[in-house]
């Protein structure tokens, strides 16, 4: 445990966990979404760290593609969130629970 890769992986795990925490505890849709972005970034960090570990470029390419994926998700996600919350007085995910049971 003294390689930078290892520390990067630990950091990535940490960020991933914090991201999950954000999704679970926050109630603002955009913040939740930000947390998800954080998780995606943790994944990217993983790819890049492993690319360094394996000394190959593939990991970086994966990270690049994942960035595109994230961007696409952001585009759609924000659109959905805006469409849903634009006319609501309260920006609260918990308010969106017409379906249950």
């Amino acid at each position: 445990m003294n390689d930078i890769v290892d520390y990067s992986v630990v950091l990535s795990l940490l960020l991933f966990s914090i991201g999950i925490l954000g999704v679970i505890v926050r109630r603002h849709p955009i913040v939740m979404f930000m947390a998800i972005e954080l998780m995606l970034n943790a994944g990217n960090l993983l790819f890049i760290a492993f690319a360094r570990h394996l000394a190959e470029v593939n990991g970086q390419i994966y990270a690049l593609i994942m960035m595109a994926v994230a961007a696409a998700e952001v585009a759609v996600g924000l659109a959905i969130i805006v469409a849903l919350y634009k006319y609501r007085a309260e920006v609260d995910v918990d308010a969106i629970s017409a379906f249950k049971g």
Partner: protein
Amino acid sequence: MSYIHLAIVWPLVGASVNGLFGKWLPKKLASFIACFSVLLSFLASFLALVMYLMGIGALGPSGQYIYTLYSWINVSGFTSDFGFLVDPLSLLMANTVSFVSFLIHVYSIGYMEKDEGFTRYFTYLNLFVAMMMLLVTSENLVMMFVGWEGVGLCSYLLIGFWYRNKAPQRAGVKAFVVNRVGDFAFLLGIFLVYAIFDTVRFSELAKILGTQVSISPYLMTVIALLLFGGAVGKSAQFPLYVWLPDAMEGPTPVSALIHAATMVTAGVYLVARLNFLFTWSQFAMLIVAVIGAFTAIFSASMALVNNDIKRVLAYSTISQLGYMFLSAGLGAYPVAIFHLFSNAFMKALLFLSSGAVIHALNDELDMRRMGGLAKYMPKTYANYLIGAMAISGIPLLAGFFSKDAILYSAYTSTPLSFPSVGKILWIVGVLTAILTAYYMFRQIYLVFLTPPRFNPSLHPHDPPNVMLVPMWILSLGSVLVGYLGLPVLFTSILGVPNVLMPFLNRVLHSVTVTAHKVGEPISNKELVGEAIVTLVSVISALLGLFLAHYFYKLRYGITEKLKRIFKEPYLTLLNKYYVDEFYNGLFVVNGKRFADFLDAEVDRGVVDGFANFIAFFIGALGQLLRSLQTGLIRNYAWYICVGAIILIVLLFRGVIT
């Protein structure tokens, strides 16, 4: 003898015609069809008798002729044919049954004249005759059982003939159910017989049991007792006699035919028919004898105080049947059959006469509201008197001879393991004879001789000839049939042969348990013994007669005082020892309670409750799990995380182990 099946077919035809088209038939035609079919039945059986006596037709080795109509059940080794066994026993039975039936049919034309269910009545009656003939002529146990149940059914239908009233219906159900209890034993007996002997045919069974077979006496006892159980039910012996008094709710000719003359004697016939089987178990035979003796005196005691004219006769019937079992149990089967034979006439006569009385008094059954009828209905009185005298054992009438034979067989019998039992049974028989004479003449006095107590507006008179003629014929029979089976005492004195016993002895094999072998030449010592027995029975009959005379003629009215003095015994007797109440409490009430418990608690509660509980449990679980679906995204995300943890742990478990 192959015409014997016509004895069944004709009544069946009569029943079918009346049953299907009776609605459209005029009463006369219907009754003619019914009577004529029974007459044909009688003729068929009589023809068979004649042919048998003349030796026409090939007989089997044991003097039996077997005629198979068709194979009824035939499954892998088990065979029960629709077949007939023609031998002295069945011929005697068949002739008696069909003859008495015919007379009662004729009588019924008059008796049931005004009844709305006229054709229905004759349908059932014809059916009964068919079934009874089947019972007595069938060649195997199962076919016999068919007749056995068939007569039970007809008994049920005829007891409950007047279905508008509650009492007949209850009586009918009671009769059927109590009979079924006996049949339960009978069926088990049949099963056991088949299980052990692999056949249910009488002839084959006789053959098997005729040789020395190694069967445990215990098993034989069980078989015999089970079969006897059926007889107990049908012949109304203790403890299953309770249905017969109630069966008097039916029309009186029915009581005469079914519940006195024919059907109830089927039990005796069964025991006689299976004599070869009963012989194997002395214990079972002892039981038969003891139950017979006990029933005889037990029911005679109940007849002492009963006020219902028909019920007294019913108890009398039970008592007489007890006599028959007494002798059958002691191995004197021909004697039992002899008594059966004479009883058929006497009892039919008595019932028909009582029917005439009842008819005349507008369906009055209570003897306390009769009296003095001798003046109004002399012919009926004469008939009744003949019947009562015959059954009481007044010398030279039929009952005297047959009862004497029974008592003699008891007196002389020494069952191997219980030698003294014979004498005890004899004493019981004698006591019963006293009681019989008493209650019969009590009846005569109460109905015919005491001052009239019936509704003065009634004008009782003798019945029309259509009823009277059968009664006369039966009276004749009651007087004469005894001479067919004269005891040794008389045969030796008169030189007249005993025709019946040798005839029956062809199939009813002599039995080891009795010392007395009927029809054999006997020593003087035995002759003296017989004389003593005869004397005792004559004395006892006269004693009973005298007691009745004393209480109801000489000291008329003393009975009321006696009732007060012996209140408890009187009430006990009047209430028939509370046996009905006891049965009701033990079986009906508890049974109902148990059934309610099973229905409400066990079936709906436990069994169905269990199924419902599972359903409820699943439903509740469904509700519970539904509440996990909160509709909140963060909860869902949390589930995903938990799922991830579960997956990780599960995967690692694989690595670590």
